[in-house]
């Protein structure tokens, strides 16, 4: 046996290599984000809490059909109005509810939405939806989807009623990556 091999058996140098690694980490900058005080900015395509715009919605029910777990509930009625002597049928949304507590944030409803810009979208960067009560507080009606009543929005994000627009529009030319 070579002399160096003998000494490496006698003095376990690999242990010191281990100590050097942990010592290096000890001095390194820490990765922790102190959450309530500091936040990490989600990416543009991050799927957060829902937003909904009733004025753009054409009541086509495609989002409800696209939803894999059927948590979008729409109730509407038809209204007829006279335009140029012709009777025209117009659909009015009475209820547009999303049961967010069951949502898996797949975003298929946003993809299915045919309007430009989207009428329902998740690119809101808002994720602080934790609550002490799950039945009422995590069931979003049309009004709450628009006003964001009781939702802690990500700093800088406003509710749809205050003018929030979809951030990243899949399939349109205004999307961040596709513009260039």
């Amino acid at each position: 046996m070579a002399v160096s091999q003998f000494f490496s058996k006698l003095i376990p140098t690999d242990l010191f290599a281990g100590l050097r690694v942990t010592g290096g980490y000890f001095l390194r900058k820490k990765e922790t984000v102190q959450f309530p005080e500091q936040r990490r900015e989600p990416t543009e395509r991050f799927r957060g809490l829902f937003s909904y715009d009733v004025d753009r919605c054409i009541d086509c029910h495609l989002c409800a059909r696209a939803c894999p777990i059927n948590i979008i509930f729409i109730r509407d009625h038809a209204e007829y109005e006279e335009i140029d002597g012709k009777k025209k049928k117009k659909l009015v949304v009475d209820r547009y509810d999303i049961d967010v507590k069951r949502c898996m944030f797949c975003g298929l409803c946003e993809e299915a939405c045919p309007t430009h810009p989207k009428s329902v979208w998740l690119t809101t960067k808002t994720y602080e939806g934790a609550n002490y009560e799950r039945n009422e507080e995590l069931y979003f009606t049309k009004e709450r989807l628009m006003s964001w009543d009781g939702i802690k929005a990500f700093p800088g994000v406003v509710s749809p009623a205050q003018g929030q627009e979809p951030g990243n529009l899949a399939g349109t030319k205004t999307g961040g990556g596709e513009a260039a």
Partner: protein
Amino acid sequence: MQAPLIQFIVIPIVKIVVILAVVLLVVAYLTFAERKILAYMQVRLGPNRVGPKGWLQPIADGLKLFAKEDLIPAKAEKAVFMLAPAMIMVPALLAFSVIPFAPATDLFGLLPKAMPPYVTDINIALLFVLGISSIGVFGIILGGWSSNNKFSMMGGLRSAAQMVSYEVPMGFAIIAVLLMARSLSLVKIVEAQQAAHLWFFIPGILALGIYFICGVAETNRNPFDLPEAESELVAGFHTEYSGMKFAFFFLAEYTNMLVVSSLATIMFFGGWLQPFPNVAWLSFLGVIPPVIWFAVKVACFIFVYMWFRGTFPRYRFDQLMQVGWKWLIPLSLANLVIVGVGVLLVKG
């Protein structure tokens, strides 16, 4: 009051109370230090929410443990079960009665004449500390046995085997220091290092290594924490303990770490001495009180303890025995011969 009464009753009691309070406070904050250091090694921040920067965390932990329910298992051996935490805590604290953390001082002129701040300096102090700290293993064994739990029992047995195997090389490592210091008194050992113009870790580097490895094993710390191996034995000998009894086991472990670190400081790093005490141009270091030097050196050892915990995986039981009997004992015997010959050559 009469002079002997003051000298033999009042002064020792004051010293004991002060030392106990300081040691327990330091031990409580060692838990905080451990959590912080481990967190830093894992690129986390660690506890920083209770009080400014988390500095009240140990106090919050203590209050929580006081408020916990004190459970005794129905089939436990009640008397022994209650006694075991005390049996491990008392020897750990008792060792501090002989640890000299500073030389005789008059507290910046407050006292009429210089007085040693440690409780006592007996001429067999080192033997006393070794003996006392060996008693601590009874607390672990009895605690494990009286819980009437197979995990606790296994933990206690492992602890006994470990203590027995690692006390031998530790003793040999200490004998190397005794050869150089020619005394068992801890104060004399420090004074011998001052007189020799040399801290004993330079001639005794091998003894220091062996002593510290054995010290880690004696205190059941990583990588030798088999008695409380979480993955195999739940928590080992203290699985069934809760509340303040559990806290006693925990505090005893940290107190033992402090004892081992203090002994290492005294035997190898000149105790309370400043670096190079006999070099004239470094005498400005004497501005810092000796007790601070002592604390800094002990803190370095404690840091190494936690560094080990953050780095090494646990030994397997047969590996543990192999390291103890096949590696450390021959090494410590060889070291003894080398140091013995060296002492003969130097002192004649």
